[in-house]
């Protein structure tokens, strides 16, 4: 895939690749090796299984959309029908492929007929297995080609209109009403926002379905639905054309439907997606196996269509102390990086997470933040990195928060981060108001402009506070990674290695949605997106 991702990070990002921190290359490569071993083992452990949401994602890529009279989405109607009939071990594609051979219906029409009670996929005549595979692969290839064509057009638009130089400013909106989100998004774009993400309604990550249609009520955010995606996309495309600057959209491939969101975002032309391997497991108590199966397919879809993913290491610093947890952030970056590679996502599309979260009264906190941010850049020079603002210790004094955000902005520009989530003065009080976001962006503009080339001017004292801190964090990360490589990621999660949160392999939400695949299991998406590991395991011929 020609990933027109924002792989062009700050000039100092690459300039400093040789190192301002005096890192030991041996330690760095030991970290990479341990992370690869961890990711490989995850691949082995989740092999031979699929999930209800992975199968629903396949139907969505095949164009199935809509909901029945009870507002159950048609992808759920289809997959539940086969699952309850005991057939999901063969994959939804097997049953859909067979139904395509037996009638003139499209996948959408099959879903509608089934929903109307006119069709039973498990009881209709069964065609030859090879013929089924060919038919469904052909159908799937046509749909992927259609989505690829749309993304090619979008890339052309992006190039024609142009984008601002990195760091790209990533701004959230979260009104609960998609039509109000459009107003906020326009204000954010006008103030210089480059990527707009509509935060999801807080309860959505635990729903094992994606709601249907436009929504005007949500709490802490707006439901991610395909219709809402379309409304935002149309509004921002119109804004981009009018103002001659392309504005990207992002959403959240997280929760029990992380792979479905990836499919919906692909149809609607979303450029970026939050997509973390462990976030749902740690912070939404999603079963670890379910989460890791879903993330693999979700990231495979993002990777294939050139979507930039953002991982969520910043969150560990919200539940654990930022200085103590620093090695776990770096360790997780290595693991997330390897897991993303395993899904076929190239470096230029992997926005690893990092955050500015040291408690304000800590003396020299700016130096430690600078060290951590620079460390991330040097360890992953070809990844855009998504840098997050201070939130945990922001205490409601919005003027202090605004001041802390200025230092955060300084570190962002000095270390050449690829994407920056802007800080907002009212952080920690409520979901910010329209002008709070604009004030945040004005702070960013001021600091980025005032210190544009600071990264090229500044070097660090040998053995000074910054170098020493970075080296200590890296060596802590190595120790953690090697321990995890010994015990395995699932055990490490159980032992609360990340964010002080413990999760067990046989507990958590969505466990019942894991399905053991049978010998005849087939998933054309995996084959077509050419993920060798999954294709082998799916015995794709």
């Amino acid at each position, binding site marked *: 895939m020609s990933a027109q991702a924002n792989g062009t990070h700050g000039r100092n990002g690459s300039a400093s690749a040789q190192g301002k921190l005096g890192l030991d290359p041996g330690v760095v490569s030991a970290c990479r090796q341990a992370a690869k071993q961890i990711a490989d083992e995850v691949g082995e452990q989740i092999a031979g299984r699929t999930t209800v949401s992975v199968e629903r994602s396949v139907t969505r890529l095949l164009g199935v959309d809509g909901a029945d009279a009870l507002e159950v989405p048609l992808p759920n109607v289809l997959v539940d029908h086969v699952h309850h009939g005991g057939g999901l071990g063969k994959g939804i594609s097997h049953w859909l492929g067979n139904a395509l051979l037996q009638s003139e219906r499209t996948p959408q029409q099959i879903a509608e007929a089934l929903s109307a009670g006119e069709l039973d996929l498990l009881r209709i005549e069964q065609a030859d297995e090879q013929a089924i595979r060919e038919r469904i692969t052909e159908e799937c290839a046509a749909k992927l080609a259609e989505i690829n064509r749309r993304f090619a057009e979008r890339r052309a638009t992006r190039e024609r209109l142009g984008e601002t130089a990195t760091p790209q400013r990533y701004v959230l909106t979260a009104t609960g009403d998609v039509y109000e989100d459009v*107003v906020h998004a326009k204000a954010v774009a006008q103030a210089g926002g480059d990527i707009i993400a509509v935060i999801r309604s*807080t309860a959505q990550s635990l729903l094992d379905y994606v709601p249907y249609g436009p929504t005007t009520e949500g*709490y802490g955010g707006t439901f991610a639905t395909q219709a809402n995606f379309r409304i935002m996309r149309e509004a921002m495309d119109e804004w981009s054309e009018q103002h001659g600057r392309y504005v990207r959209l992002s959403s959240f491939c997280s929760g029990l439907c992380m792979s479905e969101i990836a499919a919906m975002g692909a149809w609607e032309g979303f450029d970026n997606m939050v997509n973390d391997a462990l976030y749902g497991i740690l912070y939404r108590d999603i079963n670890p196996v379910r989460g890791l199966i879903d993330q693999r397919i979700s990231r495979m879809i993002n990777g294939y269509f050139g979507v930039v993913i953002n991982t969520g290491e910043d969150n560990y610093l*919200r539940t*654990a102390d930022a200085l103590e947890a620093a090695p776990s952030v770096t360790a997780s970056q290595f693991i997330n990086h390897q897991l993303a590679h395993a899904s076929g996502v190239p470096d230029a599309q992997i926005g690893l997470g990092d955050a500015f979260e040291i408690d304000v009264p800590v003396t020299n906190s700016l130096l430690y933040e600078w060290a951590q941010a620079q460390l991330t850049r040097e360890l992953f020079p070809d990844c855009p990195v998504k840098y997050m603002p201070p939130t*945990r210790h922001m205490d409601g004094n919005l003027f202090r928060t605004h001041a802390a955000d200025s230092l955060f902005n300084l570190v962002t520009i000095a270390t050449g981060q690829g994407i920056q989530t802007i800080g907002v003065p009212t952080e920690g009080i409520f979901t910010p*108001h329209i002008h709070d976001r604009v004030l945040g962006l004005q702070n960013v503009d001021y600091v980025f402009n005032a210190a544009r080339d600071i990264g090229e001017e500044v070097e660090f004292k040998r053995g000074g506070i910054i170098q020493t801190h970075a080296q200590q964090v890296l060596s802590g990360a190595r120790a953690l990674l090697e321990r995890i490589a010994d015990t395995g990621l699932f055990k490490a999660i159980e032992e609360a290695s990340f964010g002080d949160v413990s999760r067990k392999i046989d507990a958590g939400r969505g466990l019942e949605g894991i399905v053991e695949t049978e010998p005849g299991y087939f998933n054309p998406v995996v084959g077509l997106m050419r993920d060798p590991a999954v294709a082998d395991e799916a015995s794709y011929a």
Partner: protein
Amino acid sequence: MRRDVDLTAVGPYADHLSDGLVQMSFTLPVPHSLAARKAALELAGKMGFSEPEVVHYEELTEGYTYFVMYGRCTQSVDFEALQGEGFDIEYMSEDEIERFAAEHLSRKVVVVGASTGSDTHSVGIDAMLNLKGYHGHHGLEGYHAFETHNLGSQVPNSVLLAKAIEVGADAILVSQTVTQQNLHVHNLTELVEMVEAEGRRGDMILACGGPRVSNELAKELGYDAGFSKGTEPHHLATFIVRELAARVASTT
């Protein structure tokens, strides 16, 4: 010549007693224009501010204008009448709390806490309950005096209450961090109603916390106490052991 503050008629202070100056900012859904500026001034007047002044205004997006304003507040309050209501609590240190609990309570204090409803933020409840605590003060988990159960975030009120009954909780703590459209009020009210419906209100201390929670709001909703931003774990611990000791004393 220094004047004394008249505590029976207190108003905002900027640099002169009784100047009444208030800083405010807001957005109006109107196009950026001189008319917009006039509208903001007129609105401030209707809010009761005299000599309103727009010090900054700008367009956010077409049809939306942001204002930063000052105005003189013409109202005052009688501070004298408000004193003595006692919402300034004297807090004990961690050691003092341990000693107090050992002296006044014959067993561990069982505390169950959660961030309830759709709120995904566990930062508040974690700061209060987890060993690590907040701002260098241990959370309740780190005290000998407490047995804690932290259920995390997105916990339905029914699950929180069931757990509290199961472990024989002395206190239920509810955290509401980021909520929208006053959902926290609804969530908090629902829990009180459920505890009352179960006939357990008398057995348990109910406390809530969060950036938009105040002691006054908490009491209005039927809680024993509310804790806002800036609360450290030993503040909460002080309240719980004192309240429980008082209840024990009154029943024996």
